[in-house]
Every structure is written in structure tokens, then in C-alpha cells.
């Protein structure tokens, strides 16, 4: 039996392929959009996972440094440490920095930690060059995507920092590149005042602000084996009156508070793109059918049953959808590496899009089918 769809596509092959590629690019963008969202979720968790902390102790009534500003005294770590079940506890800071590179300023998030303390937030697996921080001052470990080389010197604030290590794949929860500096440096950058400010404070009669207790943004702690993380957290909450979050709760805060809006944004954008793709496929099928109205009328006139003609329309539509899907995947895989932030293409997302596109194609072919049913065989010879 002659397959009409196959013959028709062969006849208009170039046009068909170009059309499929065009729709495919649209689908590729849909996949990239979903990938951007997945990337955000992955990024949000990279730092948390690298830190390997079980508990986050932050300023009372705040959600912690990823959601809002949080300050606690550094010596809180000692109070945490003596709580039953706590294995290690250290202070940690997070702050945005603008690094001056040769070409352009780069925005980074700096993690400050005490290189001599018990928890090292740098995941050794991510260190690709150089070393961990070794000194209390003026050393920096940078992420490899910001363009600084090992041994390079970077001016930050009033001092020059030397790049001692380079990491790969480290990003802040917002997807910005990470750098690591010592806690002392971080505290100086974040909490100490400039000489001007100190002079002006003194002139106003404010007591010497440089003698402030050292602050950090959060205390992170690990829990001893055999202890229930939640009950240790409760214990700290009750004795120290601080807000305490487990690692999972921190992840929830990140994904709920920070990612949710972004995901709605991207979700809506993706949904619109899918609808647009569907409409475009429908329009293409409609025009493809319109272009064939004469032939369809002739076929009806010489007695070809509707089912055969409809089969042609449906097969062409499904093939168009399928090819567009293939092109979309190729396209997205070709370009996703060029995006500055992480794009994660997941097979499950691709399958979902596949199902959506196939359903959309079937819906689109209904328009063509309606044209076939309504086509007047007598119109073939009219005019």
C-alpha cells in the first residue's frame, strides 16, 4: 500500500526538514529554559553539600545567611560545641565581593572560614589546582570560571590577596562564582570600619567601634554519630535561643524561598513557549493541509477514503513533532555550554517535552483532519 505521508514528505523534503528544524529550535529553547531551572536548583545546593554541615545556627528569628542577613558572635561556636551530640562547630561568613580583574570586575560570593579550624568548607574534590588556605591572611582560593590564575594577586579592600588554589564547579546558591578567604580577612572586610568611619565615629563620641566582638554570619556544626540531628537542633534552640536549621531545612529554605519565585518565572515562560510551539505546529499543519486541499479533493473525488488521507496528515504531523523534538535536543545540547550559569539537561525533562509535543501534534493534526473531512470533492474540478 502506498504511504501518502512518506511520498508527500519526500516530495517536499527540504521544506519539511527546515520546518522541523525551526520548531526544533523553539523546543531547544524550551529544554534550555528547563535546564536553567534545574541548574539553579543544583547551584543552590552545591555549597550546602560541599559544607557537609549537619546544623546551621543563625541569628534568632532569621532564615540564615542564604535568605537574609544573619549575624552571630563567633564565640557562639564554643557554646554550640559543648551541647550534647555536637561534634564540631565553626563560624563562617558569606559576603558579596567585587574582584578587580584585568579585564572587568567580577562579582563573587566569598566564603570566610578559619583555615585552622575543624570544618573546611572547600570540597577537596573540587580543588583542581594549588592548595587549601594555609594562612590566616591574604590568601584566596578562587573558582576557575572567573579568570584568575594560580599565584595571581588580587586587590581586595586595603590588601592584596594571593591566589593559592583554584576550584572547579563551586558556585554560590545564586549561581555566582565562589571564592574562599580566611575568616579573619572576611571579618575585616565585612565588619570592620574604614579609618574615615572610625574617625567620624570618634568625633561623634561613639565608643571605639573597632573593639567589637568578632562576628560571623552563621555557626555550622556537625553531629556525632548516633545522635538524632533534629533533637540536637532542638537542644541548641532551647539552650542558646538561636534559630537552628538542619541541612535539609536549609535546602528547603533555599529551594522554597529563593528558587520558588524563579521557578514560577521560568515555569511560566516555559509553559508559554510550549503553547507557542503548539500553535506554530498547528499553524504549520494547517498550512500544509491547505496547500494540499486540491490534491485532497482529487483523492476524495476518485474515491480515496478519508481514513487514508487523515492518516497522511496525522503521520506527517507526528513526524514533524518527532523531528522537531530531535532537533530541539540536538540544538539544546549544542548551545547549553555557552550559557554563563549552569544549565542541566535532564532526560526525564526531555521525555516530558516529548509527550507534550506528541500530544500537541495530535491536537494540531485535528485541525488538518477537520479540513480533510470538510473538503468538497467537487471542488477539485471547479475552476
Amino acid at each position, binding site marked *: 500500500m502506498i504511504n501518502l505521508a512518506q511520498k508527500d514528505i519526500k516530495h517536499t523534503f527540504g521544506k519539511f526538514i527546515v520546518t522541523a528544524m525551526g520548531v526544533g529550535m523553539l523546543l531547544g529553547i524550551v529544554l534550555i529554559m528547563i535546564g536553567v531551572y534545574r541548574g539553579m536548583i543544583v547551584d543552590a545546593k552545591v555549597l550546602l553539600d560541599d559544607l557537609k554541615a549537619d546544623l546551621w545556627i543563625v541569628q534568632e528569628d532569621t532564615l540564615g545567611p542564604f535568605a537574609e542577613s544573619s549575624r552571630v558572635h563567633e564565640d557562639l561556636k564554643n557554646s554550640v560545641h559543648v551541647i550534647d551530640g555536637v561534634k564540631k562547630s565553626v563560624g563562617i561568613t558569606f559576603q558579596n565581593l567585587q574582584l578587580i580583574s584585568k579585564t572587568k570586575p567580577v562579582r563573587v560570593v566569598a566564603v570566610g572560614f578559619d583555615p585552622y579550624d575543624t570544618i573546611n568548607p572547600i570540597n577537596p574534590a573540587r580543588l583542581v589546582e594549588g592548595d587549601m588556605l594555609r594562612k590566616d591572611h591574604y590568601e584566596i582560593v578562587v573558582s576557575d570560571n572567573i579568570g584568575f590564575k594560580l599565584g595571581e594577586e588580587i586587590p581586595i579592600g586595603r590588601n592584596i590577596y594571593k591566589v593559592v588554589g583554584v576550584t572547579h564547579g563551586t558556585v554560590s546558591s545564586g549561581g555566582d562564582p565562589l571564592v574562599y578567604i580566611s575568616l579573619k580577612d572576611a571579618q575585616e572586610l565585612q565588619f570592620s570600619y574604614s579609618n574615615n568611619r572610625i574617625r567620624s565615629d570618634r568625633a561623634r563620641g561613639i565608643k571605639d567601634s573597632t573593639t567589637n566582638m568578632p562576628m560571623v554570619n552563621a555557626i555550622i556544626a556537625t553531629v556525632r554519630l548516633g545522635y538524632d540531628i533534629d533533637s540536637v537542633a532542638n537542644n541548641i534552640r532551647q539552650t542558646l535561643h538561636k534559630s537552628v536549621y538542619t541541612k535539609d531545612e536549609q535546602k528547603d529554605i533555599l529551594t522554597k524561598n529563593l528558587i520558588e519565585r524563579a521557578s514560577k518565572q521560568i515555569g511560566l515562560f516555559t509553559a508559554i513557549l510550549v503553547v507557542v510551539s503548539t500553535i506554530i505546529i498547528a499553524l504549520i499543519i494547517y498550512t500544509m493541509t491547505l496547500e494540499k486541499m486540491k490534491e485532497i479533493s482529487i483523492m476524495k473525488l*476518485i474515491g*480515496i477514503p478519508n481514513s487514508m488521507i487523515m492518516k497522511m496528515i496525522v503521520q506527517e504531523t507526528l513526524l514533524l513533532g518527532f523531528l522537531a523534538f530531535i532537533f530541539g535536543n540536538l540544538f539544546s545540547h549544542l548551545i547549553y555550554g555557552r550559557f554563563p550559569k549552569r544549565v542541566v539537561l535532564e532526560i526525564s525533562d526531555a521525555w516530558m517535552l516529548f509527550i507534550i509535543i506528541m500530544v500537541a501534534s495530535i491536537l494540531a493534526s485535528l485541525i488538518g483532519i477537520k479540513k480533510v473531512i470538510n473538503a468538497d470533492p467537487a471542488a477539485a474540478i471547479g475552476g
Partner: protein
Amino acid sequence: MAKQAIKVENLVKHFGKGDSLVRVIEGANFQVDKGELVALIAPSGAGKTTLLMMIGCVEEPTSGKIYLGDELVYDNRWLTKEQRKIRREKIGFIFQAHYLIPFLNVIENVTLVPQTNGVPQKEAEAFAMELLDYFDIADKAHNMSSELSGGQNQRVAIARALANKPQIILADEPTAALDSERSVSVVKMLKKIAMDQDVAIIMVTHDEDMLPFCDRILKIENKKVVSHDVPKNKDVI
């Protein structure tokens, strides 16, 4: 009864309603026998195409009866839901333009209807090749219609009309687009087909030169169909 291929009784066809009512056919009665090549002539707009389309189960009459062979297919209403099945099994259509399907090659165009009727592809193709050979275009079997000349395409179209071994061929001005030499050869071909295959052929024509090759002439006069003998003064070659 065995000779009857088409029989029409009191056939009426109106288009539209009320003020815009167009009475095209008002009670046509005629019969065409197997093996007959009949010319259908009338001025433009008299209803020739409409009449063919009613016989071909494409256009629904307003009232009357239509027999195809011995089968009553229309009796004030279609007696079957599957007019298209009747078309593809019993009728071959030829038009002024070839109306070949542009995305099918010659042999696919010719075998489409028989294959739809369930004839195995090999068998359909073998018969199609016979027909194409008969029309001297077997070498074009795998070309697209766009690669053929007008005359070649028209011969493919005639081959297509014959491919389902129809009992009836309805030809609407099949020679109008051809030069007189080609026209004569097509009409002679139709006459031969009618005789050889015992097919009833109604051919609409405006060309009086074609009439001598026909067995009979049907004229639409005063919205009725009248049968005439072919004019004797022209020599049948």
C-alpha cells in the same frame, strides 16, 4: 438488462433555495449501455459537469433515480453511505486537466485507487504497466507528473481512470486542453477501451470533430437530456 451500465430516471438537480434557486436539470431520462462511447454536449453552464458528478456519486441530485449497472444507487436519496466506495470500484474519472497527485510518481498515481481497493501492489503495478505501455508512456512510470508533458500527463490520467477496471468512465472535456491530433487519438483510445473492455463512457466535449468517433450523442436541451445519432456527414476514420 445486462447491457445497461447507466440508467437515469426523472433526475432533477436544483442548486440553492428561494430567490437564488438554480434549476439545472429538470427530469432527465436516459440510458447508456456497456461498450458505448456517448458524447454529452450542451452549451457552457447547461449542467454537463453537474450531470456527470451526479452519475459519479459526487454531487447529490435533488430527486430521481440513478442505476449504475443493475444497482440502484440513488432513489431520492443515496442508497449507500459509501458513495466513495462506488466511485473507486466502479467509476473512472477523466477531466480536462490531468489532476494527478503531484507527490506521487506516475505508477503510484495509477495504482493508488486499485491498491486502496485491496489489489495487491504487484498485481496493481503489473496492470498499471500494461496500461502505461498501451499509452506509450511505460518509460515514464517512475517519473513525477511535473516531469511529463501535458499530453503525457493526460494519458497517465486516462490510465489512472482505467486502473480500477471500471464499468463506467466519466470524462469531462478530456480533450479540451489537447491539440486536435492528440484529441483524436484520445477519443479513438476511449472508443477502443469502450469496445474492448465493455465499458460505458460518457464524454463531455465541445469539439464537434470528436463526435464522429462516438456511438451516440446526449444533449441537454431545456434542462432535459435528449439522445441523438451521430451526424452522418462526417467520415468515421
